[in-house]
């Protein structure tokens, strides 16, 4: 999936955020020397291609009182992990879920599901719900609570040199 130079410029000026003005796409257009319809069309095309997932906001879990955020990890039968992963990803309290490689012997887990809640007890109860769905296909699990944010910057597209 390639972006042309104009798409990349749109990404560069919007990846930190969209201007909070009545006509944000016109504001982006002005910065880039484009027209408002061009910017809207290009953003629509990037959404179509999956480059942009959505336009919106990311709430801060901590500020909303959801301070117990656990990365639940599961060792699931390789033949069943994709099918079961879809079910786990669909749970309302799971915000991200991925299949990842194991790193044996230290790390036997291949399914990751981020679970958010206001207390560890709440998160543990949700973890039990996941365990019930996985059933016998799961050979082991763990949960890793975050104890501190050490760094948090958005993912940035770096300017191409030259």
């Amino acid at each position, binding site marked *: *999936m390639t*972006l042309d130079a104009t798409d990349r410029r749109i*990404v560069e000026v919007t990846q*930190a*955020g*969209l201007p*909070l003005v*009545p*006509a*944000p*796409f016109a504001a982006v257009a002005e910065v880039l020397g484009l027209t*408002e319809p061009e910017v*809207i069309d290009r953003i629509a095309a*990037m*959404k179509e291609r*999956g*480059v*942009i*997932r*959505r*336009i*919106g*906001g*990311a*709430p*801060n879990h901590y500020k*909303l*009182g959801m301070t117990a955020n656990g*990365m639940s990890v599961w060792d699931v039968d390789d033949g069943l992990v*994709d099918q079961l*992963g879809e079910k*786990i*990803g*669909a749970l309302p309290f*799971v*915000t*991200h*879920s*991925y*299949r*990842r*490689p194991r790193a044996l012997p*230290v*790390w036997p887990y291949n399914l*990751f599901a981020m679970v958010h809640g206001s207390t560890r007890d709440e998160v543990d109860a949700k973890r039990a719900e996941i365990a019930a769905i996985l059933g016998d296909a799961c050979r082991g699990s*763990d949960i*890793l*609570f975050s*104890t*501190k*944010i*050490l*760094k*948090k*910057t*958005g*993912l*940035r*597209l*770096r300017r191409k040199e030259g």
Partner: protein
Amino acid sequence: MTQDIDTTDRALLNRLQDDLPLDRRPFAALGQELDLTEVEVLARISRLRDTGYLTRFGPFYDAAALGGAFCLCAMEVPEDRYETVTEQVNAHSEVAHNYARDHRLNMWFVMATESAEGIQATARRIEAETGLQVLLFPKEREFFIGFRVAA
């Protein structure tokens, strides 16, 4: 902790987790849904962003679709070196997020680079600087439904 936002703010926070209409006046369109004026919507989003309830507002780009590479990494860091290693890891601009977690693997971070080779190269550099192993957990498949919390 959460007293400084009202029910309208909560409704807005929930609505903003869905897609904004790709309209010339998107905040006016949002306002119609929530029974607010365009000015009120903008003022509330600005305030939620300034007070940290929204970590960001704008397009969410798929890192892989932008042509970059993306990898979750973990390290087992001795407690007495934790602070130093945190500085060494965070000094790399490729490290986007880094969390301390209560496990034998006690440091988990996400790397974002222009290419897959960049992930390997950065991991090797961190290993050389710290003398510690960097385990790589690239995503093989995403079970993506939506990123959503009830505000």
